[in-house]
């Protein structure tokens, strides 16, 4: 392997520090014994303890978790269906428009997504609260699932499905017994991605929420405006932990899938 030059070492260090130093500081200060968020006063885990006694924070976390699981699950179903439509029905009328519309939310500023959803909810006179947050999170995470699943479907051998149907399987059962198990890793990583996106979201949730539904990012943001308490550091560290675990699982699944596919391909070539 090539040795890193001094320039590479410096740029890597700077780049990673830029990315991770704030988070490292955050986690470090969550173990701070003192009340101040900026002055070190020795090690302690007491802020973690007080997080679990703060009902408001726990309520917000519970809301966030419910929103995340619900919206990620629905978004996964819808996103997978969109990916199937895009990957399968080759050249239907308006395909380009459809795919552009599926992917547009990826690059759409969140403020615009949030505002337009708010306008929609107001227009149809929907009471804003828990369910409107779920709906808006489904909307903006669905496209991420579609992208992940579609990239898996691109390398899917359709004759496997044909073989199942040829053996007497109806198209409906074929999807559940053949297609879904094969693309399942991609579907799961899509779900993980949707879940973490929902967990992190502040902007869209702020636009679409109503009284009584406060997500954790919203709670943190409003608390911080009144002054940063060390408790917040602890909550944020916990969130970093959850998101990291989800992302790591998703990437391991994707990697595993790739390795397996490569191995299968190698075996196929060796068998020739």
């Amino acid at each position: 392997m090539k040795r890193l030059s001094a320039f590479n070492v410096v740029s890597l260090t700077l780049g990673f520090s830029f990315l991770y130093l704030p988070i490292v500081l955050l986690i470090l200060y969550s173990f701070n014994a003192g009340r101040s968020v900026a002055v070190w006063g020795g090690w302690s885990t007491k802020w973690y303890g007080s997080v679990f006694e703060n009902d408001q924070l726990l309520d917000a976390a519970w809301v966030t978790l419910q929103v995340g699981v619900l919206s990620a699950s629905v978004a996964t179903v819808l996103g997978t269906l969109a990916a199937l439509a895009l990957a399968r029905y080759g050249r239907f009328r308006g395909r380009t428009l459809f795919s552009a519309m599926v992917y547009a939310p990826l690059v759409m500023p969140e403020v615009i997504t949030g505002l337009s959803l708010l306008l929609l909810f107001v227009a149809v006179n929907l009471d804003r609260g828990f369910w409107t947050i779920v709906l808006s999170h489904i909307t903006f995470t669905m496209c991420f699932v579609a992208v992940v699943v579609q990239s898996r479907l691109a390398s899917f051998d359709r004759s496997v499905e044909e073989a199942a149907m040829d053996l007497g399987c109806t198209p409906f059962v074929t999807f559940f017994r053949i297609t879904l198990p094969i693309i399942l890793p991609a579907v799961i990583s899509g779900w993980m991605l949707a879940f973490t996106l929902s967990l992190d979201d502040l902007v869209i949730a702020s636009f679409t929420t109503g009284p009584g539904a406060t997500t954790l990012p919203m709670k943190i943001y409003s608390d911080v405006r009144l002054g940063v308490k060390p408790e917040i550091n602890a909550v944020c560290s916990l969130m970093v932990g959850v998101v990291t675990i989800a992302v790591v699982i998703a990437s391991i699944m994707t990697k595993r899938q790739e390795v397996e596919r490569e191995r299968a391909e190698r075996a196929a070539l060796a068998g020739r």
Partner: protein
Amino acid sequence: MSAKTLGPVRRKFAPWDDPSSKPLIEIRQVTKNFGSFTAVDDVSLNIYEREFFALLGPSGCGKTTLMRMLAGFEEPSAGQIIIGGQDMAGIPPHKRPVNMMFQSYALFPHMNVEKNIAFGLEMDKLPKGEIAARVQEMLKLVKLEQFAHRKPHQLSGGQRQRVALARAIAKRPKVLLLDEPLGALDKKLREETQFELLDLQMQLGMTFVIVTHDQDEAMTMADRIAVMDKGQFVQISPPAELYEHPQTKYVADFIGDINLLEGRVTKNERGRITLDSDVTGGVIDVHADSSAGAGDKAWFALRPEKAAISLLPPNDPQTNCAHGTVWDIGYVGDISVYHVRLDQGGSMRASIANTSRVVERPITWEDKVYLTWTPDSGVVLTK
């Protein structure tokens, strides 16, 4: 090497010559268009029970499309497909009495060998015990008993091919469709597997329809071969007839090696045809049937192994004889092919079986040679 058990002897089998026999598959004037492209162009064909039928042609000739229409993955744009007396129009793949073995094998990657084979039986909702028994029987048939719990990616290409085959025949379909079944195997394995497939077909008494671009494969295995070109059948015949009596230059050229000598018909009476040929510089006398009339342009088609090569001129060098110079010798092992540049221009090939081990050939490069043949060794083609 263990002694291989040979299957039953193949007897003469020609239901297509018997007007009273009822075909199992009837393809009636079937056409398939993809947009403005016609993949299959108004073809008709009968396939009989227990027949081993091959669709042979270059890629893009429509053979795979025709097979996919039999399996139900494509609907004909026009025409009718009848299998076992039942019109297949509108019947989806999962309700057809045929099974297919895919070119890519299409094994289910998330199921082991046993589960793959059992899949079709489970779909038929057979009792568990019967499924297990049938899977064991199939595993034994394709000699994969000890691989029952392996996943497809843990198998070699040849083993996967067997799993695909076992899975396709487990339901005992009336018709088994095989799409390039041996395409992914190496030559040695392919030849072995050809004979295994033949034995299997005899044992099971199933009708096999195979799609292939490999003429050796079709010739070795099939009872009849349909040669396809541009979506149409050029000729449907048993292998020997296809080889010895090709009806067009396309078939003659596609199946095996052939010399096509252009000439003009001077006489055609009672199966005796005489041609004047500029290529040989003499007369070609043929005992064969042809519709060619006097004055027509025609080609004399002669297989290289039916031409004799000699350093000495024959008694009558003006009839059924061409002379030239040996330009190249292709040593294949069992035969040697002599490429001869004719004195009149053009070239011919003659192949000689190497029945002796002497490597020094009496005829070598640059030799002046005479190629001769008997009147019944070739055919006359007009198109």
